[in-house]
């Protein structure tokens, strides 16, 4: 089967066509991934860092660690849900390569579900050990924390395998040959022969540390109203080295990825106009966040500063998502023309979805606002002191 031309393994063109134009579907794919990346980075690198700080950090660092671990159940809940959006639209646009690639690695791919359930319950258990302002994990929960960190990194690695294999058609025949029974796929492979796998994995993992650093500042500014001035001051001081470390990894592994191993087609798409605009801003944007963190260091973070830095980081991840889309599309261009598919707009379901989407966000904002306002009012009533805003 070494003789198989990978091009011949792209799945049959579907009969139904796209329910909306490719640009619309891609927009939601990229937007969805940006929103997925925010919380995902927090558990991806965040749990590991939180456990490191549990072991080696000072009091304030442990305080942040405990705060993040306490927030983890909610972060995971929303992060997983936000992952559904890009996956839905990926399956609409890229079904001809997505399904074959994931079938080739079926067991690792399916194991994500089991690993995720474990990691998720582990995160709840760890958070439970930190309730009531406790900052130090104890006993078996320490072990659980490390396990959760490892599970999330393992899951991230499988995702990196899946999405790199989706564009690495070159290796499909060899993997197929290695793992087939009468031509059927056993699904016990990974995309391990792909030189882009490791740098890609490490690059994204490094980037995740920059998001974790931003969480420190955002959390201190926007969510840690009850914490001391000292904590809110030290959060920004702690964030800077974390961010710089992540940034360094991002630069090193990113260069390895783009200049060392990336297929020529993708590289030239990223380095030519107009892709280069995004490539350059993707590379530089995290630096801007570092500068922002630098100017904030040593001061108690204000609400506005926390939100502003968070917004910058969402932009960083958005630019990153656009660049990966440019690279992905370029790599797949020889095999898959997603603009060739007929488009049959499903207008009324689409409009209904958009309306519900906006209305849903409105409902959530309304509920959260109500919860926050009422709980503050009740708090200040029981304290006998005026509310703090």
């Amino acid at each position, binding site marked *: 089967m070494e003789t198989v031309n990978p091009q011949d393994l792209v799945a049959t063109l579907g009969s139904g066509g796209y329910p909306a134009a490719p640009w619309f579907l891609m927009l939601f794919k990229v937007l969805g991934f940006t929103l997925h990346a925010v919380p995902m980075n927090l558990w991806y690198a965040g749990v590991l860092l939180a456990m490191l700080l549990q072991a080696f950090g000072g009091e304030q660092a442990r305080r942040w660690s405990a705060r993040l671990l306490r927030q983890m159940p909610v972060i995971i809940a929303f992060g997983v849900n936000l992952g559904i959006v890009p996956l839905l639209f990926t399956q609409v646009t890229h079904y001809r390569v997505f399904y074959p690639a994931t*079938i080739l690695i079926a067991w690792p791919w399916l194991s994500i579900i089991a690993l995720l359930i474990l990691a998720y319950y582990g995160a709840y258990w760890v958070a439970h050990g930190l309730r009531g302002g406790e900052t130090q994990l104890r006993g078996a929960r320490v072990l659980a924390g490390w396990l959760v960190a490892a599970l999330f990194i393992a899951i991230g690695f499988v995702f990196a395998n899946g999405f790199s294999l989706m564009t690495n058609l070159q290796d499909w025949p060899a993997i197929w040959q290695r793992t087939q029974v009468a031509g059927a796929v056993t699904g016990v492979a990974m995309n391990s022969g792909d030189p882009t796998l490791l740098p890609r994995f490490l690059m994204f993992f490094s980037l995740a540390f920059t998001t974790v650093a931003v969480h420190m500042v955002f959390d201190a500014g926007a969510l840690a109203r009850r914490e001391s001035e000292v904590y809110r001051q030290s959060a920004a001081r702690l964030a800077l080295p974390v961010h710089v470390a992540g940034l360094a990894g991002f630069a090193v592994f990113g260069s390895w990825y783009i200049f060392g191993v990336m297929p020529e087609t993708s590289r030239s798409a990223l380095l030519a106009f107009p892709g280069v605009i995004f490539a350059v801003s993707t590379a530089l944007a995290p630096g801007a966040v570092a500068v922002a963190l630098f100017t904030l260091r040593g001061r108690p973070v204000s609400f506005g500063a926390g939100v502003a830095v968070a917004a910058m980081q969402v932009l960083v991840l958005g630019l990153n998502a656009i660049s990966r889309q440019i690279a992905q599309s370029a790599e797949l261009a020889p095999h898959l023309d997603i603009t060739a598919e007929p488009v049959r707009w499903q207008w009324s379901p689409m409009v209904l979805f958009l309306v519900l989407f906006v209305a849903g966000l409105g409902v959530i904002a309304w509920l959260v606002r109500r*919860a926050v306002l009422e709980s503050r009012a009740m708090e200040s009533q029981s304290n006998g002191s005026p509310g703090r805003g």
Partner: protein
Amino acid sequence: MHYPWWYVPHLTSPMLIAFIAVVHVLVSHYAVGGGLFLFVETRHAHRTSNREYLDYLHRHARFFVLLTVVFGAITGVGIWWTIGLASPLATEVLIHTFVFGWAMEYVFFVIELAAAFLFLYFWGRVTPRTHVLFAGVYAFAAWVSLVLITGITGFMLNSGNWPERGGFWNGFFNPQFAPQVLARTGGSLLLASMYVYFHASICSPSSALREIIGRRSARPALLGAVLIVAGGAGWFANLPESSVAALMKAPALNIFMAILFAVTVAVFAMLYFGPYRNPAWLTPGFGVLFLMFGIVAVTVGEFVREAVRKPYIVHNVVMSSNILASEIPGHRAAGFLESGPWTRALIAAKFPQVMDGTRIDERRLLDLPPPQRIEAGEILFMHHCNDCHATDTGLSAIPHVTIGWAPEMIHDVVTSPELFHHYMPPFAGTPEESQVLAEWIESVRPPFPAGMRFGPASAEGGE
């Protein structure tokens, strides 16, 4: 076949879908009914200022969130993961048809999550009115997500006139939609009460409180049981003829239907004489037993629902052999192996001598030496039959279902599987392909079992 085929030894890969789907359904229906329970009962407890009940509801809410938000949500994603792996073509068709349905469902998921967390984490920190509002929003969003997914699962069982007319709404409001919404709503109510009884009996609040819980939750449970029966009747009335025939014919399904009926009667009786009339019966033993009944009923119900769809994954659209129903005539002319990119590439690599340029010349399959013909037959089996039949041992393993068969019988079943059992898809290949497939089955078919006596004992047989 449009895609590669995922081979799972003994079990067959589509069975993984069934397993994950059953565990998911057991929790996701509770996620809907339990939301309604929390809404109605929290409101009641606030109104009657029943502190003890509120404390219990707080504990129940924690259990509820831990079970539904984690296990329920991730197994739901798990179903999607497995259908993509084991039934990629059906998933492709469903996603292209209903992507905006799923996207809408996703909006309601996010609302559910937000409302559930607010309900739990702001317990006692907001006014009762707002607290009940959170539960209400949760319950409504959860029920809407049930309605949205039912449009899609109903479509899979009876696609109505969609194959001719197409269209999102036409597919969504299929003949199975209303009955299944009814039945699933009922299932949510009943299952939620079962979880409530289970949890309340174990978490043993005072006997006075258990009595309140027992009595109050019996009413939605009885309503749920009625809805299940009504929805079930509608389900049956709107089944395609092929599904009704499968229900009548397959022994396993006969037994399942009998179990389903018996469990339903038992649940009715237990509910009425138990929590409704004698709330003091709500002991841990009762709680566990009752939940077990629920689990059995749901599991059996889901298996039946899945099984009667055969030979389709999506009724009249996608065959279980991962080709479109509309493709069958074309495949018969051009060849099954030729029509799938992966099978074509495989044959070209393994048996270049049967290729005519880039096409498979099916006639040349018969020029191959016997071992290679058998090999080609196994490839056909994998891609055309392995979704329902294991290869050696396991689920409906092909050697087991053909014990002692004569070559002509094998030939007949391979050329017209649908005439043996209408829930097998018709053979979608050329005569040469059916020939090599038959040869492979002959090569694995065990001989007729020895030692069976059909007639009077002979002298030698008595030893």
